[in-house]
């Protein structure tokens, strides 16, 4: 009788869940490895955004009057509403993870759809804000207009707030504020759009019964990504909308 040095396929595929890869000893070890890898990715994202935050802090300290005038062009109400939507979406995703862990398929699908809708609401409000900036020629580039800053009477909102005109050389630096505003919020929105693409994929898979059979790693790692995007917005809201208003 010929014996093999290798375990039979039957033995190798014996008593373990189908989603446990062969190079892991247990489901817990596999989940920990995936979770740690996700954290390393998220920390690289933190370092990426930190470059933008550093640029903002340095230029804000150099050109405070221009950054104050730029910040006053933003709508705090819409920014706060967007913060609320993102926080609610993080909550609904957390409830989605709980649903997956407790194997409640309908609840998971509902939570994922709710997260998607809240994300869509965030992007909708952001697009309204962008449209207003483009309409007032506050998008950096050839058509950028300084009139709101050197002649406040030309801008109804600025005029009503009783703002003083900026000297021309300082007013020019408002373009820098809006460059950073569009770079930071645009990069954040891009992360949201990527996240919503993944969310749409997850909704379809969850509808088919995935994630509620005990293997929740994908949902948990996606929630980590979404929550990091939430944290970035918490700081963007504070820095862009709030700290330069006086």
């Amino acid at each position, binding site marked *: 009788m010929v014996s093999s040095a290798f375990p039979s396929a039957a033995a190798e595929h014996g008593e373990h869940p189908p989603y446990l890869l062969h190079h892991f000893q*247990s489901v*817990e*070890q596999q*989940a*920990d*490895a995936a*979770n*740690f890898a996700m*954290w*390393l990715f998220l*920390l690289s994202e*933190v*370092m990426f955004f*930190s470059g933008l*935050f*550093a640029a903002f*802090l*340095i230029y804000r*300290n*150099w050109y405070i009057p221009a950054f104050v005038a730029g910040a006053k062009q933003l709508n*705090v*109400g819409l*920014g*706060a509403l967007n*913060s*609320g939507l993102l*926080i*609610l979406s*993080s*909550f609904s*995703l*957390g*409830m989605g*993870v*709980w649903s997956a*862990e*407790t194997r409640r398929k309908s609840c998971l699908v509902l939570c994922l759809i709710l997260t998607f809708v809240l994300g869509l609401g965030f992007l909708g409000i952001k697009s309204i804000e962008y449209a207003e900036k483009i309409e007032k020629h506050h998008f950096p580039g050839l058509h950028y207009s300084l009139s709101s800053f050197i002649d406040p009477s030309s801008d109804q909102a600025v005029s009503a707030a009783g703002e003083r005109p900026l000297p021309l050389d300082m007013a020019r630096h408002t373009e820098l504020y809006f460059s950073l505003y569009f770079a930071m919020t645009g990069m954040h929105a891009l992360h949201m759009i990527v996240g919503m693409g993944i969310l749409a994929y997850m909704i379809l898979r969850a509808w088919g019964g995935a994630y509620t059979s005990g293997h929740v790693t994908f949902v*948990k790692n996606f*929630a*980590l990504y979404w*929550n*990091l995007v*939430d*944290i970035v917005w*918490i*700081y963007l*809201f*504070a*820095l862009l*909308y*709030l*700290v330069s*208003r*006086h």
Partner: protein
Amino acid sequence: MSESIHIVVGPRVYVAVLLSLLGGTGITAWTALLNLGIWNPVIALSIATFEATEVVLYFMWVKYSPRLTWLAIAACIFLFSTLISLSLVDYMGRAWGNW
């Protein structure tokens, strides 16, 4: 890699954190409308940091994560703080007296 104990965080914790985050956002937006001088950025960034900590601990389950995750996050915060503070010191040093 040491294996963690996997804890299922329940709705009660999520609701408590949600209410705290929404309250924090409301307070930050309200205080930004008051002229508190140098305290405006201090208050806004302190509340933002408190909110971010809550999200990391509870919505991202770091409170229940293995020590390796804590170590990686601490290393990232240390590196981030070092890079930001050294960059700011450099720029402030170059324009000394013009602040």
